[in-house]
């Protein structure tokens, strides 16, 4: 193997000899430099390989022929090898990326570039503290040189700021080093570690100076204004070098020097990390410049890594895993994003929608951003999981909160940015992409995928089965050029196969009713909802991989046995659905709301799982039941995550516009299927936690009220909507309110209601959305008042909607009534009369919008421009009729569904169940015989119809407008279509209930965060002196903090 010392020799030798080539062809000098970088990468890579595979021992490299501490020595161990490989491969890729710049700027810059990486290499390897200082200086000076690759005014002044700041920092470091030497008599790090310097007063101050200088090198918030300006002004090719190279190496310095400070330094470093993480992410919110956002993000991630480092002892053998998964993912993703920023060459994130022209890059941006955010399946997810679990276990709940809050802030700005990329705009200029700039980006994205796989394997948290969906998604993605028809068949058959395996082969033999019910909703529902896909023309790029991911996430929820698997699937599902929604035409803003609420919910859930783990030490879902001490908190936190998904009152504002703006078939999927994931989660949670007495009954009580109010507000809002999709969306909020209410009753009948509602809601909501989607597809409008009279043109859709609304309104004899009837029984048995009355009232309010829906679309006069419409496509109708069949079966014979569920629930709620006698179901309160009612109704209806028919055989169909209209004959359909603002009087009387309190409240929160962020960031004045000042204040304050005085 090539010794690590050759890294120095090669790099320096190349850099020095480049001087000979100053006037030669620059391709030669570049090739030379490139070869050298490649060789560096090779050396570090082979050592890494040796450490990974051959149990290589850590080795020491002596220089000058003497042993340390008398001479400078280097060390090559596993950690060094990892860091060096990261740094050097970054250098190699950066060289490719900067190819044209370096060639244009000449040999001097190549030397600088080369030496920067040489410096970092030595910094990582050296075991001598002064040597570390020297080579750190080399790297910072080289960076100052690279800053002026762009001779822009702002780059130059930020370079000056950097010089001042790093000069002050290195001065502090130097004082610290000398003092350390004075107190220990050595510069060898191992000696310093064993010298116990902290025992002497001066010694501890010396250690303080070294540590604070190293911390300052990490650019901690808020003493980092200089670094931010540099990030923003440099060539985008330099950004990764700062964040992935210098920051990484600085982290390693901290790691290496930490033992000198000893355990006493762990907490301060952790707190620094926390402040950095939270502060940077908070200030990132207000940023508009892509490079600056990335800068804030880099600093925050470094903060996170510092937190992890400070927990090294308590993380124990998990430390490496957590640290490296977070570090490497941030390193790769940040590099990728910086590079893409350079390709785009637009600083304002508003201009990033130029990427619309190259969808491939959007995919890459997505991968990088989600990697940064630590979403599954990307590596940081596993690391964050272990971190939160560990923090919780050691009781650091405040830290958990701060980390999650910071992550949320990060999500705000990254996802908003992502959204901006997807904003549609005409007249975009063309994006010229140089091929050599693309290579590193693609390489990095593959590295992320590979590393994701490795981390997952390393973590041991999930089995191989969890990759299958990703592989399928990737496969479909690879065959994305195929037409929709084929891909749709592929997707349907995949889901069908999966549902066969999951439901038929696994859960039916186990008779696990809960999972059969929700598995069927999720997967069979998926098949049904995929059918309309056949109507789409073209390729529909990117749609199918996401669909597969979303449904696999849902299936993963069903299959999950541990909280980790559950959370994993939950995030996959959320992410995929977000990406599906954002595909809609104007869906950028709504989907942002959606993902933001979802993330916040997911984070509270995360915290809840952490609490549970803290108490039980197990991540099994069943272990949730053993949580006693933290039961209330864990329960509430986890529940919030589910409440967001089911859009419970208070966190519902994301839903309507997301539904409205998503593609039509996507809306059907998410409204009929996806939203049930929250219900499923609540059921899982309640089954394991609420049934034990540890959870205060007040929580379900509160949930009940939330559900009731949600039902009322959702339905109230629905009746005023003029956008048909929004109308149904609000109705979903209402229905989810019922289900939440029913679940929180924690009784047999309540749960039976919830199950029934879930199934029935799936059926009719899917039916309604599909039917409406078919109509929208034909009429090209979502405004309900622009439709009308379509029963003449689209009778089949009308039948679907009619059955849908009858079921929705809960009218007998259709299946909706089953839910209503059980609901009443449950409420009265439970004694929640007032809430029950509210829910009941909202059920009647539902009637208003049901009528609005069917009337404004299908009844009334036909509009002139719709006179030639055709019935919706067969692909929209087929799934509708499948769903109608489902509704009819349950309507006529609810027993087949309700009875097994009842039996299942009896395991948990043995009392007050439903008793079946033939087709009659009865509780101790009432009884109901759906079959008989259906028979009676059908018989009566038939008789009456025959009577009517027999008495009016000569009925003749009249033309439109042939009505009694005060003696006049209206000519335009609009004048007689009473549709817009249909319930004006109702609004006049009860409009106050629908005032957007909640929306305003959230808006207020959101805007306050922004304006505070805007105010706070003002202390970054842009003046280099002020930044230097921040550094010194930071030092003094830190000293005061550590020593509590001078």
């Amino acid at each position: 193997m090539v010794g690590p010392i050759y890294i120095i020799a090669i790099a320096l030798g190349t850099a020095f000899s480049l001087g000979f080539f100053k006037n030669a062809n620059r391709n030669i000098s570049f090739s030379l430099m490139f070869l050298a970088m490649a060789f560096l990468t090779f050396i570090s890579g082979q050592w890494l390989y040796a450490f990974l595979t051959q149990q290589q021992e850590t080795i020491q490299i002596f220089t000058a022929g003497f042993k340390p501490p008398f001479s400078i020595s280097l060390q090559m161990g596993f950690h060094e090898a990892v860091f060096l490989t990261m740094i050097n491969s970054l250098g190699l890729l950066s060289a490719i990326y900067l190819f044209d710049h370096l060639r244009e700027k000449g040999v001097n810059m190549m030397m600088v570039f080369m030496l920067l990486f040489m410096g970092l290499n030595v910094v990582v390897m050296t075991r001598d503290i002064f040597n570390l200082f020297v080579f750190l200086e080399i790297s910072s000076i080289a960076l100052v040189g690279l800053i002026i690759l762009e001779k822009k005014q702002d780059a130059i002044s930020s370079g000056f700021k950097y010089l001042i700041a790093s000069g002050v920092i290195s001065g502090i470091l130097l004082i610290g080093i000398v003092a350390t030497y004075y107190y220990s008599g050595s510069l060898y790090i191992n000696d310093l570690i064993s010298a116990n310097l902290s025992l002497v007063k001066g010694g501890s101050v010396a250690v303080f100076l070294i540590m604070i200088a190293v911390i300052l090198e990490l650019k901690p918030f808020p003493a980092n204004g200089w670094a931010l300006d540099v990030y923003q002004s440099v060539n985008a090719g330099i950004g990764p070098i700062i964040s992935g190279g210098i920051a990484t190496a600085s982290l390693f310095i901290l790691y290496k020097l930490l033992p000198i400070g000893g355990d006493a330094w762990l907490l301060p470093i952790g707190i620094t990390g926390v402040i950095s993480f939270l502060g940077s992410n908070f200030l990132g919110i207000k940023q508009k410049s892509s490079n600056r956002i990335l800068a804030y993000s880099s600093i925050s991630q470094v903060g996170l890594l510092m937190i992890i480092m400070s927990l090294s002892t308590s993380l124990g053998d998990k430390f490496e895993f957590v640290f490296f998964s977070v570090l490497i993912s941030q390193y790769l993703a940040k590099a990728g994003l910086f590079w893409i920023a350079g390709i785009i060459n637009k600083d304002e994130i508003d201009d990033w929608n130029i990427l619309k022209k190259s969808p491939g890059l959007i995919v890459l941006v997505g991968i990088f951003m989600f990697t940064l955010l630590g979403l599954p399946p990307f590596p940081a997810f596993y690391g964050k999981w272990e971190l939160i679990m560990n923090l919780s276990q050691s009781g650091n709940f405040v830290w958990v909160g701060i980390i999650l809050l910071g992550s949320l802030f990060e999500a705000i700005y990254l996802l908003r940015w992502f959204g901006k990329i997807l904003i549609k705009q005409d007249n975009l200029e063309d994006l010229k992409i140089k091929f050599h700039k693309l290579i590193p980006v693609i390489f990095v994205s593959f590295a992320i995928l590979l590393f994701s796989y490795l981390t997952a394997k390393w973590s041991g948290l999930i089995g191989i089965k969890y990759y299958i969906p990703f592989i399928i998604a990737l496969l479909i993605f690879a065959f994305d050029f195929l037409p929709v028809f084929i891909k749709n068949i592929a997707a349907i058959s995949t889901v069908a196969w999966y549902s066969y395996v999951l439901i038929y082969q696994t859960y039916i033999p186990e008779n696990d009713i809960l999972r059969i019910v929700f598995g069927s909703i999720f997967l069979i529902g998926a098949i049904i909802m995929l059918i309309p896909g056949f109507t789409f023309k073209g390729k529909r790029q990117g749609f199918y991989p996401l669909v597969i991911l979303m449904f696999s996430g849902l299936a993963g929820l069903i299959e999950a046995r541990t909280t980790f698997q559950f959370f994993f699937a939950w995030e996959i599902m959320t992410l995929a659905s977000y990406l599906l929604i954002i595909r809609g035409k104007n869906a950028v803003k709504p989907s942002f709301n959606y993902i933001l609420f979802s993330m916040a919910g997911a984070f509270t859930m995360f915290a809840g799982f952490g609490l549970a783990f803290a108490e039980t030490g197990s991540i099994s879902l069943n272990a949730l039941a053993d949580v006693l001490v933290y039961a209330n908190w864990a329960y509430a936190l986890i529940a919030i995550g589910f409440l967001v998904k089911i859009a419970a009152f208070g966190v519902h504002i994301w839903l309507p516009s997301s539904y409205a703006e998503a593609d039509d078939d996507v809306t059907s999927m998410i409204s009929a299927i996806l939203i049930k994931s929250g219900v499923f989660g609540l059921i899982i949670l309640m089954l394991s936690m609420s049934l034990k007495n540890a959870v205060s009954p007040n929580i379900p009580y509160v949930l009940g009220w939330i559900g009731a109010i949600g039902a009322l507000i959702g339905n109230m809002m629905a009746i005023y909507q003029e956008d048909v999709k929004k109308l149904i969306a609000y109705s979903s909020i209402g229905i989810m309110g019922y289900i939440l209410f029913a679940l929180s009753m924690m009784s047999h009948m309540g749960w039976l209601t919830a199950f029934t509602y879930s199934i029935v809601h799936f059926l009719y909501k899917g039916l309604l959305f599909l039917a409406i989607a078919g109509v929208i597809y034909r009429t090209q409008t979502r405004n309900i008042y622009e439709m009308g009279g379509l029963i003449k043109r689209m009778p089949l859709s009308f039948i679907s909607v009619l059955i849908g609304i009858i079921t929705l309104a809960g009218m007998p004899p259709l299946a909706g009534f089953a839910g209503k009837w059980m609901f009443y029984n449950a409420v009265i048995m439970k004694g929640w009369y007032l809430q029950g009355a509210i829910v009941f009232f909202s059920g009647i309010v539902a009637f208003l919008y049901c009528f609005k829906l069917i009337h404004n679309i299908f009844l009334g006069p036909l509009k002139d421009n719709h006179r030639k419409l055709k019935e919706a496509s067969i692909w929209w109708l087929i799934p509708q009729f499948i769903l109608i069949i489902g509704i009819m079966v349950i309507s006529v014979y609810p027993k087949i569904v309700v009875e097994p569920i009842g039996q299942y629930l009896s395991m948990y709620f043995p009392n007050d169940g439903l008793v079946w006698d033939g087709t009659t179901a009865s509780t101790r309160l009432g009884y109901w015989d759906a079959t008989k009612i259906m028979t009676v109704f059908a018989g009566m209806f038939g008789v009456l119809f025959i009577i009517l028919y027999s008495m009016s055989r000569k009925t003749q169909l009249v033309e439109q407008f042939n009505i009694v209209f005060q003696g006049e004959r209206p000519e335009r359909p609009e004048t007689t279509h009473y549709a817009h603002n249909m319930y004006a009087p109702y609004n006049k009387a009860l409009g106050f209930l629908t005032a957007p309190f909640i929306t305003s409240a959230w808006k207020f929160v959101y805007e306050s965060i922004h304006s505070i962020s805007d105010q706070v960031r003002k202390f970054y004045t842009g003046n280099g002196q002020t930044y230097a000042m921040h550094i010194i204040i930071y030092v003094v304050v830190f000293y005061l903090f550590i020593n509590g005085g001078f």
Partner: protein
Amino acid sequence: MVKNSFIFLVLIGLAAILLNLFAGFNGSTELGTIAAHYASKGIEEVGSANLVTSVVVSYRGLDTLGEVTILFLSAAIIGFFLKVDNTDNKNRQLKYTSEILNTASQVLVPIMLLFGAYVFINGHLSPGGGFQGGAIIASGLVLMFIAQPKKEMGHKMINIVESVSGVSFVLLGVAGILFASGFLDNKILSLGKFGTLFSAGIIPIIYILVGLKVGSELTGIALSLKENQNEA
């Protein structure tokens, strides 16, 4: 003013930290183990009379390499930054310098160059060494440029000296791995007789290289800063 008093307060705080750092400082009375080792074994191991030189060049040779690199970097960056614009160069107005300076420089410059060379060649015997010698040479050359602005001594030659000495330094280091026990090992040449010019292994050679390199780098920096550049 408020701001300045605040800065003053902060600096007082920093001063307090530094006072704490050296609380009870009374100066060492004994050498530390490492320093003592250098003092007692230095001659035996390295063969240089000047202990600072043996530390700088041998024991901590890697630092010196880094240090040279830093100057190299600065020179490269400044050279790139303040790049001479050749087209502009032709119309350049030269200021004539005084006769005295001119004459003095003709006398002084060779002496300074010689002195510089002496300093770095004898670095292992007496105070001084590569840095000092290099700095003196650079000062001499700078003086020459002040006196005779027309004298063309391009970056080209400086570059070549710089590169040659740098590469040789590295090669010497590698030779240490090949022929002795480690990078920059002094013992690839015999230590020779203590106290003579040709002793102390490769120290004199390294110091010559360092001297040349530092000299050329410093000159390069000064030259870049002095020369006219595109003043847009």
